[in-house]
């Protein structure tokens, strides 16, 4: 049997494979370093608050905390570089090469391939946002049928992506300020500080409010989503968030008969059935 089957059954519940071990390790390193960076960075952004000195002391105060911050900053930057290499390698090996063997490669075809990557935002995302708003405002009972990665997850991916570029570059400038000002004027350090700390606040709030709500604290997942550890998502959440992908996987696995109705429709179906 395959080590990581697309569908796994445990305690009578179907689980759907979503994240490879490599991806999960990348995520844990990302999460770990981001939390450490926030904890060692925020006291410096808000030094006048009552909690700042205590939190900072926890990391060794003004002498040690900046060192820890730089170490984890370097880990995060290394991870970012690794991720880019990983991304290019995976797309090249599993998508571009097979295409090359099948037919002649053109720039247009490669661009199309990149545009069709599951994490690239597309028109369906806009449609899904519109449909979600309809659902949230009680205009429909039906949640949008999410693809493998929904717009929320794309947001979760691209926001830190952009954040890491901004925060990473500005952090490197402040870390190597003497070197940076050999070329650029000293005011670059001013702009780096603003960009670094303001973008970091945005990133921290974004992750700790939006990402944690969707992945852990929402009523459907509470108290904690486990897919980031196990790599598998339970059927109920697949139905709720990734219905399109769910139907596809189920059909592929020859379980088309056992596909559950979309989220919220189950009750409606039985209600209507009762009336008939």
């Amino acid at each position, binding site marked *: 049997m395959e080590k990581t089957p697309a569908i796994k059954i445990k305690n009578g519940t179907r689980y759907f494979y979503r994240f490879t071990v490599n991806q999960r390790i990348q995520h844990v390193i990302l999460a770990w370093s981001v939390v450490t960076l926030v904890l060692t960075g925020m006291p410096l952004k808000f030094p006048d608050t009552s909690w700042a000195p205590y939190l900072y002391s926890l990391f060794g105060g003004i002498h040690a905390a900046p060192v820890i911050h730089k170490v984890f900053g370097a880990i995060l930057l290394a991870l970012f570089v690794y991720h880019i290499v990983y991304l290019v390698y995976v797309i090249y090996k599993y998508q571009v090469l097979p295409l090359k063997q099948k037919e002649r490669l053109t720039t247009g075809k490669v661009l199309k391939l990149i545009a069709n990557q599951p994490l690239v935002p597309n028109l369906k995302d806009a449609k899904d946002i519109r449909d979600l708003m309809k659902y*949230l*405002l009680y205009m429909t009972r039906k949640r949008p049928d999410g693809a493998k990665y929904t717009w929320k997850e794309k*947001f979760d991916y691209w926001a830190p992506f952009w954040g890491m570029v901004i925060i990473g570059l500005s952090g490197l400038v402040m870390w190597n300020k*003497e070197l940076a000002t050999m070329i650029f*004027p*000293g005011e670059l350090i001013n702009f780096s500080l603003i960009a670094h700390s303001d973008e970091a606040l*945005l990133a921290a709030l974004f992750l700790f409010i939006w990402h944690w709500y969707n992945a852990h604290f929402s009523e459907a997942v509470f108290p904690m989503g486990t897919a980031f550890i196990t790599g598998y998502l339970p059927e109920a959440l697949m139905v709720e968030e990734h219905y399109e992908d769910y139907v596809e996987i189920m059909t592929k696995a020859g379980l088309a008969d056992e596909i559950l109705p979309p989220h919220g429709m189950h009750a409606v179906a039985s209600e209507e059935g009762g009336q008939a």
Partner: protein
Amino acid sequence: MKRAGQVFRKNLNFIIVLICVLLFAFASSVFAADIGNCLLCHKYPGISRVDENGDLKLFYVNEDIFNNSVHAKVNCEGCHTDIKKVPHDPAKKVDCLIECHIMEPSTEKKFSHKDADFFLANSVHSKKEKDGNPKKFAEDMPTCKDCHDNPLYRPLSFFKKVRYGVSEASLGRCRVCHKKDEFIYRFYNHVTTRLHKSRNPLNIAEVCARCHNDPEIVARHNLSTKAVYSYGETFHGKAARFLDERIPDCLDCHVRQGESVHQMMSHEDPLSSTYKDNRSNICTNMDCHPSASPKFATYSVHAEFNKTQSPVQYYFTFFFIVLTGGTLLPLMGIIFLDCIRRLFPHAVIKRRK
């Protein structure tokens, strides 16, 4: 029995150490400068008076604290020269520029703070313009006591320790030649206090903040920044807030190396350390950023989130504020709606046909 003996010996050691510690703790009171017996009254914590303006004035002198201060060797009458008898009439304010009875050992002249006043009169904090005419708002300019109180000794420790304070091990070496412990303590304290600042960077900034963060004074003198506020926005200022001793404070940049802080100049004065062309010398100081290029000093140390003072940085910051609000508010709105939606998962507003 053997065990009991051991315990007693252990305790004996402890008692001896305790006695030594207590002796050192009380050692300071040996150096009292109270020749006029002023503490007869002023040792009482409640001693106070309501003055003509209705303000309550406290006259309590904590002997222990005073004896650990830099003025411990000066008698009360050394500064309070108008007091000749006890009990005395209301005392005049102390004039820091008087010659006190202490001899300055290198010149063998009576000691005075007059030099500081001379430096101050020629600095940016002078009450007079360069042409000798009084400045506008001369009363805002600081005098001695606006920046100074009676600081405590803050000795550095040198003897294989990183702890601050008097190093007993170092004192042992002093005792080889110097016999009087009072002399040893005072000299050790005096010299090691003067080897660094008697205040940490945060305290120095707080002193300057009294005027330089006062919006009225800043406006009255057309200063471009609330200097200590903008310092606090930099890494230097933030580190100072976390009690870093090694971070530069106001004086490290605004005073030329090797000169008295009282000789501070305006940044428009070519002699000033903060004059445009001199600035890079501050930053590239061997102790700070020796590898930095002159461009490094074009960093705006006192930039504020202020449209007129630093417009580019203002709009740059503004962009991030808008980005943060624009991202988070809609997402938080969705979270809010989602929380409520989950309470009524099957509810739907039906349109009338």
